[in-house]
C-alpha cells in the first residue's frame, strides 16, 4: 500500500486507483500485416523491469482520470506523477 498524488484530486490511497500497466506502448500502425507472434509481442509482452518504470494509472474511485507515474518497481517509490500528454521527466 502506498499513497499516490493524483494530479487532479491530491494525495489519495492506492486502493482508490487502478494500475494500467506500462506506459508508452506504441500500437502497430498496420495490425493486419503483423504475424501472430509480433501481435502477441505487442499485446502481452512487457519489460517487467526492476527499477524506475513509467506506468499508466487511473483514479478509478475518484475523478476517473488517467495519468502517468514513474514508479520504482523494487520499493514502490513514486518518482514523478504527471498528466497524460505531458512530457515525462528525465530520470
Amino acid at each position, binding site marked *: 500500500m502506498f499513497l499516490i498524488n493524483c494530479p487532479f484530486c491530491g*494525495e489519495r490511497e492506492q486502493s482508490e486507483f487502478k494500475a494500467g500497466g506500462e506506459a508508452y506502448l506504441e500500437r502497430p500502425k498496420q495490425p493486419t500485416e503483423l504475424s501472430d507472434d509480433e501481435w502477441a509481442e505487442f499485446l502481452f509482452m512487457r519489460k517487467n523491469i526492476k527499477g524506475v518504470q513509467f506506468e499508466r494509472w487511473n483514479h478509478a*474511485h475518484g475523478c476517473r482520470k488517467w495519468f502517468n507515474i514513474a514508479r520504482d518497481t523494487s520499493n514502490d517509490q513514486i518518482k514523478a506523477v504527471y498528466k497524460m500528454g505531458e512530457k515525462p521527466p528525465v530520470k
Partner: protein
Amino acid sequence: MLNYNQTIKNQKSYQGLQMSEINPVMKLIIRGKKRDFLSAVGKSLNMVLPTKANSSTQSEKLTALWLSPDEWMIFSNGVVKENTNSYETETLLNRNISKLNLGAVIDVTDQYVRIVLKGDKIYDLFQTGSPFNFNEFRNKIGSVTQTIIAKVDVIIHNQNQNEVNLFVRRSFSKHLFSWMNDSASRL
C-alpha cells in the same frame, strides 16, 4: 419522482450521530470541457461551477459539486415534487447545453441516494471504513471528495459543521446504510 421506492426507510440515531435519507432530491451530472460550457452553465443557473479541485459552490436552490476537471454534480437543496420526472433545471440545461453540443447533461436523480449525516461522530464513522484523510476536509465547509467507504464508491460533501451529504449508488445504498449502522453502533 414516479414509482420511487425509498431504499432507506427510517432515520437512525446514535450518540452524536444521526443518519437519514433525504428524498426526492434532483441530481444531475453535467460534463463539458469548453469555456463556453462553463459560461453557459453559469448563465442558465445563475451560479458559478467550482473549478478548484474538491470544492463546491452553492446558490439558493442548487449545489454544484466538483467531481473531476470536466464533471460536476448538481443537486437541489430542497426536495422536489414527487409526481413528476422532469425538472426545470434539467430542461433548462438540456436546452442551453446539450442541444448546443457544449456538453452533456444526465439525470441521475434515481441513480444516487442522498444520505445526510449529522453529529460530531461523522468522521469517526468514516474512519472505520475509508482510506481517505478527512483532517483537512472536516475543517473546510464546502469541500467534496469521491472515495470509498467499506469498498463502496461514495461522494461526500461537507455541507456544514457536523453535517455531511453522502451520495451513494442506489444499488449499494441499502448495504452501505446497514454497514454504517453496524459500525456506528460500535463507535
